[in-house]
């Protein structure tokens, strides 16, 4: 079938128990995406609740220090709940409410998507249950408490690698038990159609604003647009309106963990192969028999063995380039941005910052490099302290 395809990628590879739920979601989304009242309500929430439009910030000190391209940061970290995740969640939870659902469930890695979902559910009056790998509940304990504070139930997933992929497995299982009253708020541009398209649409507000903002500030388009990629929601949001601008390079920064050449990595494009998993055809880290590989990244939000199907297609066509960035480079960028600009980035976003630090000096002063700062790094202070062997009282 051609529906929900990005080249050979995408599709709807899910159990029959979920098919009608996904088809109903598709029908409802098609109906509401062009509905003026729905869009007005969503815009109102995005602007007056989440704090959009987010700022496009000229990182003057970083630019001067690195001595190359002008560096701009799209400040998704300043959104309510501290990351780009709220853009998608407000759209989906509002849609769930219109569809008459009384309960939302979601997976979360670093906890940002879980916090955003719990927030939107609290605001819009829906019950909320979050599934999070046990390892992630430990490395992101603060976010677990935030979710509970917001009224959500948090389930620690103890199967498999106890990280993001296992949280997705468990949320899919839970959804198949309760499709009638429950909507699954998928947090990234992955899963079966229509999720990759719908989440991309909700996140594309990032590049719609950023493109206008950079044209207003500089009167020209950037040479490169950079974002970190796990499943790929902030990056697709950041790329989307620049895709037709072929002169703008699109760079996705994958989590290389200890290095793309090691087995402690989550760099899907660098090390993965085409496969079918979590409802979609795309690239996945896997072994020769198609068993999904355990992956590693210091950043829980990028610790995922796959990538969204639209990214897989952007890679196949060469429109976007995906580069691996290691844990150590990300931690260095985390500290650098904190000390240079006074902005503590999420470890996920620090992967994009690390690429900018390396690329900007190689570009001319006339060029612009624009990076998505997808989230704030308060949640990662303890992780980085542990990484550096610094004892702190959490």
């Amino acid at each position, binding site marked *: 079938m051609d529906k929900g395809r990005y080249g050979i990628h995408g599709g709807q590879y899910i159990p029959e*128990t979920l098919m009608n739920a996904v088809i109903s979601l598709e029908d409802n989304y098609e109906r509401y995406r062009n509905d003026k009242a729905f869009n007005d309500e969503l815009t109102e929430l995005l602007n007056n609740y989440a704090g959009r439009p987010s700022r496009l910030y000229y990182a003057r000190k970083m630019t001067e220090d690195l001595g190359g391209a002008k560096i701009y940061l799209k400040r998704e970290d300043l959104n309510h709940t501290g990351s780009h995740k709220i853009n998608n969640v407000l759209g989906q939870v509002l849609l769930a409410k219109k569809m008459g659902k009384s309960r939302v469930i979601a997976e979360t890695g670093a906890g940002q998507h879980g916090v955003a979902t719990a927030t939107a559910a609290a605001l819009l009056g829906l019950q909320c249950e979050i599934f999070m790998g046990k390892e992630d509940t430990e490395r992101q304990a603060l976010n677990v408490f935030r979710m509970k504070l917001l009224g959500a139930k948090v389930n620690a997933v103890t199967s498999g690698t106890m990280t993001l992929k296992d949280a997705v497995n468990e949320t899919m299982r839970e959804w198949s*038990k309760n*499709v009638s009253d429950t909507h699954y708020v998928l947090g990234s541009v992955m899963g079966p159609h229509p999720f990759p398209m719908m989440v991309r649409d909700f996140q594309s507000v990032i590049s719609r604003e950023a493109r206008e903002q950079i044209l207003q500030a500089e009167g020209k388009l950037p040479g490169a647009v950079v974002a970190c990629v796990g499943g790929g929601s902030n990056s697709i949001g950041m790329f989307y309106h620049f895709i037709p601008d072929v002169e703008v390079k699109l760079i996705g920064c994958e989590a290389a963990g200890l290095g793309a050449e090691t087995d402690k990595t989550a760099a899907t494009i660098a090390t993965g192969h085409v*496969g079918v*998993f979590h409802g979609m055809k795309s690239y996945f880290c896997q072994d020769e*028999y*198609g*068993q999904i590989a355990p992956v590693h990244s210091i950043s829980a939000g990028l610790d995922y063995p796959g990538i969204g199907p639209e990214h897989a297609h952007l890679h196949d066509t060469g429109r976007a380039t995906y580069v691996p960035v290691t844990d150590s480079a990300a931690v260095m960028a985390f500290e650098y941005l904190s000390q240079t600009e006074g902005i503590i980035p999420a470890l996920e976003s620090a992967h994009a910052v690390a690429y900018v630090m390396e690329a900007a000096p190689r570009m001319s002063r006339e060029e612009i490099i624009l990076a998505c700062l997808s989230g704030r790094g308060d949640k990662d202070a303890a992780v980085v302290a542990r990484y550096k062997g610094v004892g702190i009282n959490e």
Partner: protein
Amino acid sequence: MNRVSNAFLNKNGKAFIGFLTAGDPDIKSSERFILEMEKAGADLIEIGVPFSDPIAEGKVIEAANARALSCGTTTDTVFELVRNLRAITQIPLVLLTYLNPVFKYGYESFFECCNSVGVDGIIIPDLPHEEKGELTEHARKNDVRIISLIAPTSKERIKRIAESSSGFIYLVSSMGVTGVRDNIDTDLESIIKDIRAATDTPVAIGFGISTPEQAKALGGISDGVIVGSAIVKIIERHGVNAAPYLYDYVKSIKCELI
């Protein structure tokens, strides 16, 4: 010749379909367990190809998948198991596998192997009707039946799925994942009526069946019952020594189907 239909000849009552995960606790035991279930009256065996992330399975079968993988079971080991069984038995054998191991093996090679070792059918829980097209030609060429699933939520999809079904139809008794349930309250009779209106393909009911009473009731309205988690639990408890317990259990269910 494909053997799936032999399970539904009704010469010996309704079909009993037993499931186990290949390689749990090891591949030699799987061979013994399958032969033992056949001796106890099983009409068809569903062999699970272990997968790292079995999203349609409950805790019991998920744990069996992990045990099988940790002792080194691969797609090739499973083919070897079927090849060995075929030297001894003609019982219909159907593989249950998630799509990725099939995709990674290569559709063409996978189905050629199925044919050469004697696999009669394949159940792929994460391959819905709409995406089946990419496999059908390979399956047909190699005389392997793709078993379709129908769920309580399938509704208007039933007709379409039933019309293109082959081998048998796997009717999912209730929502959620595999695992033992106390009560099954789906209106299965009306779903079966819709299926019968569209096709002659036999219908077997699975998900949540563990007791002789459930088997009797569900066998009464269908062409057979599928038991998975209850069997895997016995294997989990008794390990390599599970054979006699499996025999007694399968016998106790099968006698309700005659």
